[in-house]
């Protein structure tokens, strides 16, 4: 499995509050330290990052494709005609013009399935990142703010989960719960929240010592208010960057689990299972696996470039003067 590990590793590096490695990265300014920025400035910055802008556009197009999939598909993506089994794309000899990208191993229109597949892949990415973020950031801020037993319990639990290889963990959860979309999300989030927890906790620890928090305390604001309206806005940018980068790897994980025989497991087309079940046909019908693979590649690459751009833009230390 391939994962975007950089930001994760800042958090993983040590069981202590901040390992030397983290400190170093912190000093280097690579650690995600993000300031509140106004949004107008943000869009101007984005324009200066052509790859990130391109990534953003592609991601938006994909989301639109997923939303309007039922209107876009030329054929039924679920049922095929067995006679069209491994039909080549239309530009090949033997291809049929109405099946632009050809058909898969059960004679289903590949283009329609790729369009529909965007739904699963994008939902897997968005939902699992959203759930992981909410759980991770909530517990992370609370742990960093209150410290004490709450912090201790969650931090140890996080260490424990981190020591599990992610794919074995996801595989185990899928085996235990069975196939299905929501089980997949559950498997991904079960460990996914940890990175957000570590990030939010670490950020909170450093923000807590800052003057504005002290000032808020002095002015008599409650803990909850301080956490929500003072600390949260100051760490949310780094969470967004991490979230973007994680989304790509979670989408890839869906494909990896399909390869190991435990994907979404239903008739709903999902890119991961399409690439995985089509891989056997690579030598005589490359399109069945390669075209969904391209679709996935483009999406994940765009998400990563967007995430990378966000990191550059939102991290003030890396700006050129």
């Amino acid at each position, binding site marked *: 499995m391939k994962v975007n590990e950089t930001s994760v590793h800042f958090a993983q590096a040590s069981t202590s509050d901040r390992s030397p490695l983290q400190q170093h990265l912190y000093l280097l300014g690579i650690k995600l330290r993000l300031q509140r920025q106004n949004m107008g400035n943000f869009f101007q910055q984005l324009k200066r990052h052509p790859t990130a802008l391109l990534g953003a556009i592609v991601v938006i197009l994909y989301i639109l494709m997923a939303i309007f999939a039922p209107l876009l598909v030329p054929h039924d993506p679920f049922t095929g005609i*067995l006679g069209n089994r491994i039909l080549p794309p239309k530009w090949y000899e033997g291809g049929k013009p109405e099946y632009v990208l050809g058909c898969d191993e059960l*004679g289903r229109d590949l283009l329609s399935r790729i369009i529909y597949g965007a739904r699963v892949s994008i939902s897997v990415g968005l939902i699992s990142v959203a759930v992981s973020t909410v759980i991770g950031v909530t517990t992370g801020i609370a742990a960093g703010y209150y410290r004490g037993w709450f912090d201790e319990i969650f931090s140890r639990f996080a260490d424990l989960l981190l020591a599990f290889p992610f794919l074995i963990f996801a595989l185990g959860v899928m085996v235990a719960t*069975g196939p299905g979309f929501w089980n997949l999300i559950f498997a991904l989030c079960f460990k996914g929240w940890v990175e957000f927890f570590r990030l939010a906790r670490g950020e909170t620890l450093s923000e807590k010592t800052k003057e504005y928090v002290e000032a808020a305390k002095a002015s008599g604001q409650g803990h909850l208010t301080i956490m929500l309206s003072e600390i949260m806005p100051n760490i949310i940018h780094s969470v967004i960057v991490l979230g973007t980068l994680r989304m790509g790897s979670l989408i890839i994980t869906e494909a990896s689990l399909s390869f190991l*025989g435990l*994907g979404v*497991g*239903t008739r709903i087309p999902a890119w991961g299972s399409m690439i995985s079940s089509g891989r*056997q046909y690579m*030598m005589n019908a490359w399109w069945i696996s390669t075209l969904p693979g391209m679709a996935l590649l483009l999406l994940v690459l765009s998400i990563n470039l967007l995430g990378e751009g966000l990191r550059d833009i939102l991290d003030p230390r890396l700006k050129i003067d």
Partner: protein
Amino acid sequence: MDRKWQLAVALVLITALFGGVLGGCGPADGVEEEEAKTLIVGLAQSVLTLDPAMHRDRTSETVIRNMFDGLVTRTPSMDIVPEIAESYTQLSPTEWEFKIREGITFHNGDPLTADDVEFTFMRILTEGAVDGQSSPRKGLLGSLLKVEKTDDYTVLFTFEEPWPIFLRMLPHQQIVPKNYIEEHGSEYFAENPVGAGPFKLVSAALDEEIVMERFDDYYGGSPEIPPVGPAHVDTAIFQIIPETSTRIAALQAGDVHIISNVPTHMVDQLEADPNIAVKTCTGTNFFSVSLDMEVYEPFKDVRVRKALNHAVDVDEIIATVMDGLAIRCPGPCIPGSFGYNDAITGYDYDLEKAKELLAEAGYPNGEGLSFVLDTQDAHKDTAEAIAQYIEETGIDVSVRVWDWGVLKPLLDEGGERAAVFSSWGNSTMEPHDLFEPKFVSKLDDVLGRGNYSRYSNPEFDELFFETTVLIDDNERIANYKKLQEILFEDAPVIFVYTPMVVEACSTQVERWEPSPDGRINLHRVGLKE
């Protein structure tokens, strides 16, 4: 303290953490120089063990049977012929006498006698006989009570009750050396196996490759399967290549000579390669869609079950999804089985008839019927195709792919499921071996172990148990034909197909044919040039 020194100590500490794990890594066996003729086989699965008594796994058996011989063996056409045994006679319904061929030696030079045969079987029958562990192969010996030597080259098998399929089950057991195992223990034996087969072990990394060399003092194998004599290649290697695409690539790149489990859609392309030959033969896996009558109420109605059989065009599925490389099972047996009833021609594909039957049963246009068809990843293409056909009747079907380990308990205990498309092994080609787990009423964990339809017909059960103890083949055939008719009429499953065994080899390979039980025997195989 000096920083460098501290670092050194720290690194030693870390290394110590691994010490216990890494100490003395890797296979210790030495390997030898390259030999003249080396045959390499690419297998799809890992070998679990090299001890013939300690597995229930076809791949392991394939490798083991190149190093170990049994009392009897199967010809490529699935007939039973003597191997280590010279002859055998049935003394009574429950007693069999085997004469052992004289002059056979194990790889270590020990002669093979009746003692070794007795030891082999008692090691499986006796609980905890393998260094305190029990063999999982006991069930393959039916009601066998004991095996006794009557003289140095004669053994007597005694059963609790008649067991007509004994001979057909016997090729699954291989003879092991008594003295060697008693001297070294079973754990050592599994690492350094010694058999009486055509090849002896050189080195084994069970998830990587198993290297064997020709056993020059081999007695020659079964005289019924020529050519008799030592193996033709000097070295035989089984390599484990789990990923199908990689296995095929390895054959095309010339890295291996024979590969197992070739996907059917690759056949045309492989055949177009002048250096590759594809070989097929009938398989022994019975595929069907079990319709669970207890869990899903509408399946209780035989008209619904028949309608589903009429709704699925099995021939078309074979022609497309299986690329023609499967044989339709019109009824509950694999064509060519013992006592096969060829009067049963199957349910025709007839959508109108299916709709009529559904309407009669109270489900016009499939209204009110909606179920999930479960299957494993490996069989999902056919399952999808079956579901597509069933949907034509108006029934709402969806396919769900499971990890088998999760699905199996659901199949046994019921729960949220209705139909399952699955395979059942029938390597003996005896209806007994298929009917007992698949169609006999579920009485305990074992009878009806694969009866995912929860089919229960007292008439069927009675006749089945009557047949179990019959010795006369004609009576058995008559009864089996009757049993097949009952099952066909009751249609507890959608009868589907048996896939053919598809394997491929380089054109350099001589005298190699796949066998129906998927076993790859290299004894007679040669290499050109």
